[in-house]
């Protein structure tokens, strides 16, 4: 495919009808939670889009994000859009390996310097290069080098966005997120473990159509991460009524009651699972009867057990109370003894009670 053709021309050449294209624009708008009035705008912009170059780097990751993206959809027009994107370098997907692959990356960088989009999945280990190296280049060095020529960076998955599982306590590799290392480029975070595939494609399309999307405090596109799971959860009426499942197979669970007691992190998790859902809109964890793990939030792995209610302390409070009681006993006994001694001496010396004594606060 020629690099200077517009997306519209390419699609036409491939025999993709205008109707197909409109359908794609309509479903994409719906996915991006844009009002239907925006459909013609998406169509007009995408049509004129010229093939952007994309470099995809994978660092400390499990390939789940790439799997999520590539396995979920059958051949659809999204794939054509992806064809239109020139995926010049993707560690996992490309056929070339070793120095040939690195050569492709360098070429793509040179050709589109300052204009390509850098997609990253996986977190970046700290100073010790031994944790993760590609073709002898440390992850950090490669990220800095490629980021320097990128127009913008998309961090796919919780690892790239927030450090994810590699960063979980005690963070053996000293893992950090993309935004920990890169400060001078626009970064879009698409967290999730993995992110919803439709959200990955949706953000990329949104990015290509409208430029940098509106981002929240954590760099997530508001269109997909603007609502919490809890706000959009169909079990919410049960939460409000105070009807909770107490275990995975009790009456409440069978009746589809709220999963808060079973550790649901929906109230603090921002993602599109409750509306976009998974597997082409079939279902999502809560609909399948499992509490939300909060995988698209920072440090989700360290928020205590997945099955511990969100409102409860993460540490062992019962034990703390017992220790505190013991400490209090010792301190209190000492204090009590000294007060008693003071009282006895006061009685012996016939000390007078003054106004100040009575005015003591505690």
């Amino acid at each position, binding site marked *: 495919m020629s690099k200077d053709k517009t997306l519209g021309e390419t699609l*036409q050449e491939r025999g*993709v*009808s*205008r*109707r*197909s294209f*409109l*359908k*794609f624009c*309509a*479903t994409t*708008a*719906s*996915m991006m*939670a844009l*009002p*239907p*009035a925006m*459909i013609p705008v998406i169509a007009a912009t995408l049509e004129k889009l010229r093939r952007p170059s994309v470099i995809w780097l994978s660092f400390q990751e499990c390939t789940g994000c790439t799997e999520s993206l590539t396995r979920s*959809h*059958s*051949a*659809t*027009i999204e794939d054509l859009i992806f064809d239109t994107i020139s995926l010049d370098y993707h560690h996992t997907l490309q056929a070339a390996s070793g120095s040939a692959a690195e050569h492709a990356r360098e070429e793509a960088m040179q050709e589109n310097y300052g204009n390509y989009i850098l997609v990253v999945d996986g977190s970046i280990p700290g100073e010790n290069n031994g944790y993760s190296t590609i073709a002898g280049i440390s992850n950090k060095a490669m990220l800095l080098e490629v980021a320097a020529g990128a127009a913008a960076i998309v961090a796919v998955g919780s690892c790239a966005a927030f450090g994810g599982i590699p960063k979980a306590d005690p963070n053996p590799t000293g893992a950090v997120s993309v935004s920990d290392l890169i400060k001078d480029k626009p970064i879009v975070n698409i967290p999730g473990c993995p992110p919803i595939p439709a959200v990955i494609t949706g953000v990329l399309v949104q990015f290509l159509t409208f430029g940098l999307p509106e981002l929240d405090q954590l760099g997530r596109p508001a269109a997909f991460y603007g609502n919490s799971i809890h706000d*959009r959860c*169909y*079990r919410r*009426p*049960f939460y409000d009524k105070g009807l909770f499942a107490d275990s995975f197979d009790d009456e409440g669970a*069978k*009746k*589809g009651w709220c999963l808060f007691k079973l550790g649901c992190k929906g109230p603090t998790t921002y993602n599109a699972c*409750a*509306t*976009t859902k998974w*597997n*082409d*809109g*079939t*279902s999502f964890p809560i*609909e399948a009867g499992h509490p939300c793990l909060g995988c698209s939030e920072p440090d989700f792995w360290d928020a205590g057990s997945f099955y511990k209610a969100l409102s409860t302390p993460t540490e062992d409070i019962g034990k703390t109370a017992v220790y505190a009681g013991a400490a209090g006993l010792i301190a209190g006994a000492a204090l009590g003894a000294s007060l008693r001694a003071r009282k006895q001496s006061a009685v012996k010396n016939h000390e007078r009670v003054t106004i100040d004594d009575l005015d003591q606060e505690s």
Partner: protein
Amino acid sequence: MTANGMPASTIASSAPCAPPTGNLVPLLHEIRHALTRWLEQGEEHVIDLRSIPLAPGEEDSLLEQLGEGEVNARLSITGPSDIIETRYPAVWLITHYNENESIIGRFIEICEVPGILKSQADDIRAGLERLEDQLSNAETRA
């Protein structure tokens, strides 16, 4: 598979117990308002059903209430799309499927004919080219 493409097992497990969100009636009113606006000002309106939280089963009951009218068209465009005029003229239900026949988008449009049902200028042009090619091929052969 059921009418709206949801695997039957999912519906059976979650539909009977999901409490209604209460969004159904307001939705029907939105359609009513849109119809009045169309009659008075000719203004078209699109509702994206994905943008409205509906409990499992609630969408089915919406579709049931809208029913099926005189037109039922199926488009074959990278996965089928169903364009159905509901019991209420000018209220169209458009369901887009991907090639696995899973729903990827569902809209209600209030208009005379949904835009996507009309032949598109680009496609007409391409079609004309094909016809001309065919004719000129036939002529040279003749």
